[in-house]
Structure formats: structure tokens, C-alpha cells
């Protein structure tokens, strides 16, 4: 298993003992009636194998993005354990990333995982050139040789179909779709084991969406990293993923092969979701 999450919860607020039991899909609410805390993620178990592509769908506010941020450590989980392959303690035993210190955390975020945000402004530094952005990630993962860094940046820009002559241009001079592709180049440049995508194509026009999805799929086949895709667009999920989980009110209400879930949904909410596609 490349990623193993056990009973992971995230509560915003006081977090009383009743929070987890009195919220969730069965109660149709994420707000704890006792202490009014908001339960973002409620007791989630998830595993991901090497090369597997997992989709997370659900309505807005269901905790999809929060779950992704808990994995990438943009936010700290309130409870639970998260294990990542190759992330081990001094004695060689796998280590809960919630116990990681700052140094281990930067290793985790720089070498083992990458995140692609919906808004390229979150993933890119607009004070650095396109090449500089990719260089930052490569340098963080430990490479200090200029020629190798430069070639790596050129390689991934070419892979994502950005003209390599524009490597020294700043992100704001690129179009939205190109900025998103620079973000993808940056995320892939450190050879991550897990790629996390948070609504990677929302807000882009359809032809660009299709191009970026094809690109991600192609690179995934070529390099073989594992992937978690968060989207409320079932088309994206269908196109990219092998397995899917459906979230509602912070809980996973259904999981299975993507085809199965889209063709034969079991949970009432999933049925509603699938039938709502225009």
C-alpha cells in the first residue's frame, strides 16, 4: 500500500466526544448538535495501491478537499493515522505522518507527494519564472546541479506542451490553461509517488480540460505514480480513475470500481448524484 489512512477525522471547533457519533450522512449534517463544531472529515479509512487512481466525488462541503489537504498536510488531522510508503521512522518502521516534524514534513511534501490545486495561484509562486517554479521543487527534493535542474524543467515543460522557449517567462504572462500545465510540470518534476489533484480542470474551457486530462492520464501511464483526484465533475472521474469513493457530510458513503459506481449506484445519495448529470 502506498497510502493507508485509518480512522482519520478533522473537526473544526471545540471537538466534543459526541461530534463524530452525531454527525454524518445518516444525520444529514456536518454540524455537531452538542458543541456546534463542524466535522469536515468523519472517521475515514482509505488505502491506495501503487499506480492506482482514486477518485473522490461528493457535493460541495462534503469534505473532499479537506481530506486531500489532510493527506498533503496543508491541514493537520484531529484524529487518526496516515501512513505513506517510504515514510519511515529511525527504526525503519512506517511512521504516522501526523507525528512528522518540520524536516520530515518537507521531505514528505517535496519528494513523496505533490499537490495540484484548482487555482494555479496556490501552487505556483508568481515571483518566480516558469522554470524557476519547477526548479524550486527540484531543488527542494535535493538536486543542486544547475544543468540537471534546467534540463528537468525543460523536459516537463515539453511534456506538458508549453513552448520551451518560454521557460524564463513569469506565470502571469501565460494563459489560465498554460498556468495549470506549468503547475502540473512543477508537481511532477520531483518524481512524486503520490499525486494529489484538487479539481484540476474546474474553471477551464472544455477543449483545454480535455487536453489536460489526457495529459495527466498519459503521464500517469508513463510514470506510474498513484493519484487521488477530487472532483465534482463525474466526467473527469470517469475519464481518469479506476476506483471511486463517494463522500457525504464528511463520511465515505460508497466505494467501489468507478464503472460500478457510475453504472449501478447503491447509496441513495450516489443515485441522486449520478442521475443529476445533465
Amino acid at each position, binding site marked *: 500500500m502506498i497510502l493507508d489512512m485509518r480512522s482519520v477525522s478533522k473537526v473544526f471547533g471545540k471537538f466534543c466526544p459526541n461530534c463524530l457519533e452525531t454527525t454524518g450522512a445518516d444525520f444529514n449534517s456536518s454540524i455537531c448538535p452538542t458543541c456546534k463544531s463542524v466535522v469536515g472529515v468523519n472517521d475515514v479509512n482509505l488505502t491506495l495501491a501503487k499506480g492506482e487512481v482514486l477518485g473522490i466525488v461528493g457535493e460541495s462541503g462534503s469534505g473532499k478537499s479537506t481530506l486531500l489537504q489532510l493527506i498533503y498536510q496543508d491541514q493537520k488531522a484531529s484524529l487518526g493515522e496516515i501512513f505513506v510508503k517510504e515514510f519511515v521512522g529511525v527504526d525503519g518502521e512506517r511512521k504516522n505522518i501526523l507525528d512528522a516534524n518540520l524536516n520530515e514534513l518537507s521531505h514528505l511534501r517535496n519528494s513523496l507527494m505533490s499537490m495540484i490545486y484548482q487555482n494555479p495561484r496556490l501552487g505556483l509562486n508568481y515571483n518566480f519564472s516558469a522554470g524557476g517554479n519547477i526548479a524550486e521543487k527540484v*531543488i527542494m527534493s535535493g538536486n543542486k546541479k544547475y544543468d540537471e535542474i534546467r534540463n528537468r524543467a525543460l523536459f516537463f515543460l515539453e511534456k506538458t506542451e508549453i513552448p520551451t522557449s518560454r521557460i524564463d517567462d513569469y506565470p502571469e504572462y501565460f494563459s489560465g490553461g498554460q498556468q495549470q500545465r506549468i503547475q502540473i510540470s512543477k508537481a511532477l518534476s520531483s518524481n512524486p509517488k503520490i499525486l494529489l489533484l484538487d479539481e484540476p480542470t474546474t474553471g477551464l474551457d472544455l477543449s483545454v480540460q480535455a487536453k489536460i486530462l489526457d495529459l495527466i492520464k498519459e503521464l500517469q501511464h508513463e510514470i506510474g505514480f498513484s493519484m487521488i483526484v477530487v472532483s465534482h465533475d463525474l466526467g473527469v472521474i470517469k475519464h481518469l480513475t479506476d476506483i471511486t469513493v463517494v463522500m457525504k457530510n464528511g463520511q465515505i458513503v460508497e466505494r467501489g470500481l468507478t464503472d460500478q459506481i457510475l453504472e449501478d449506484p447503491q447509496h441513495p445519495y450516489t443515485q441522486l448524484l449520478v442521475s443529476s448529470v445533465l
Partner: protein
Amino acid sequence: MRYAFLDEEAKKEIRRSILKAIAIPGYIVGFASRELPVARGWGTGGLQVTLAMINEEDTLKVIDQGCDGSVNAVNIRNFIKSVTDVKTTTNTKEATIIQTRHRVPEIELQEKQTLVYQVPMPDVLETVEPSIAKAKLLHANADYSKLWVLLYEDTSMFGDSRISNRYPVMVNDRYAMDPSPIPKYDTLKLNNCKALQLFGAGREKKIYAIPPYTKVEPLKFEDREFKVENFEGKKCSRCGSQDSFLDEVYDDDGVTHYYCNDTDYCDNNLNDGEK
């Protein structure tokens, strides 16, 4: 008047900060910068470090960009002399404490000498991270990727770093440090130096240090050379030296002359010649 101007409590506090700085090479230690009869930003950091450690047995030398005779150097030297009555000198070899602004003396320093730098901007990350709180975290995490990206971008656009002075250095493989605005030429002299090097920033209220024999390396890519100022084919018009940091001076006729930047080094060369 107290010996060395500062009150004993102040000296104690500054010495404590200096000790902490020496214990963690390259780490920036805060201190309560005192008022002095010199405006902040005119060497008050270096001055306080010097005043806190000087005693009757010391011999003091003060230089400003290599020169013993510039206004800033003369005034600071006279001030310290007036409050301590220590011996002063312009000779680098004789001095036990050398307070300097933006230069490292040309000849190699020895054990038991102390070089005190006057520092305007103590934090090397200031150019890339405006938030001090965030910069502290980056230091704690040894995350200097932003400095590296700056170096990457300069290399990709201009072939080399554009930084001519204040070149970032890694101290003891741990902290990135601002060596004060010394020219690139002097950066390599910080490495494995026999003398104790102390850095004081009075306006910014910071002290940091490099203990003797500490590894100090300029920040550079593994596959790129670190280049310093090149004076090939030029020599000092006064002493004829070909291996020192030279100042370029134009006379009224527009003719270019070169002179040693380190005046004591130049004087010694002349004296040796006369002998």
C-alpha cells in the same frame, strides 16, 4: 564614565548573545541594541560587539572598506580609544580586535584575533521572504530553496549570479548567512578562518558569529564555479601589488588608476620595498 561606555548589564547581555551566536554558527541571535553617540546604521552593531568584549590588553584596528583613514573608521576608533584607552593600530598583524565595515583584511588573520563586522541587513532571507516570522521558520527548516531559485534564475538569464557583494554563504552546512556587504572577493576568506568572526547589526538588533576553523561555503550549484572579481593584468599604482582587491579611480584627465583597497596592506608593501 564607565569603562567601554556601555553599562555592565548591557555588556553582560551582549556577551551572552555573542556566546550563543558562537555556539550556533550562522544563527541570528537577537539583542537589545543600546543607544550610542553614533546614529544607528553607522556601525553601532559592530561597535557594541567591540565595546562588550574589549579590555586593556587589546589592540584595536578599525577599517571602513579596507581603509583605516576614512571618517567612519577614524571616528569609531577615536571613540573607542576615548572610552577605553586601549592601544590602537593600523597594522593588521598587531591588532587583536579588528572592527570592519564591508571588507576582510587582505592578509590572513591569525588565532586570537577577532574580526567584528558592521552589518546593515543581518538576514540573508530578507531579499526573498519579507515576513520575518516566515523567514525564521525557513531557517529552522533549513529551507533555502528561495535563495536557490534566485540563483537559478540569475544563472538562466545572465549565466551567473548577479550578486556582487553580500553573497549568501552556508555556515557549517546548516545556516545560510549574510556575510555583510563584503565583496565576493572576500567571501572565500570566511572559510576555515583562524580568527573569530563576529557580526553585529545595531539597527536590526542582531548578532551572529562564525567560530574559528568553521566551514563556510558560498551558495552555488555543484556544477558551476564560484567566480570572484577579476583583476588580471591590473596592479596597484602605489605599491605595485597584483594580488589584492583593487579600487578603480579616475583622475581629472580621465585616466584610470588602480589602488589597493586595503590601505594597511599597501603601506606594508611600500615599507617592505624600501627595506
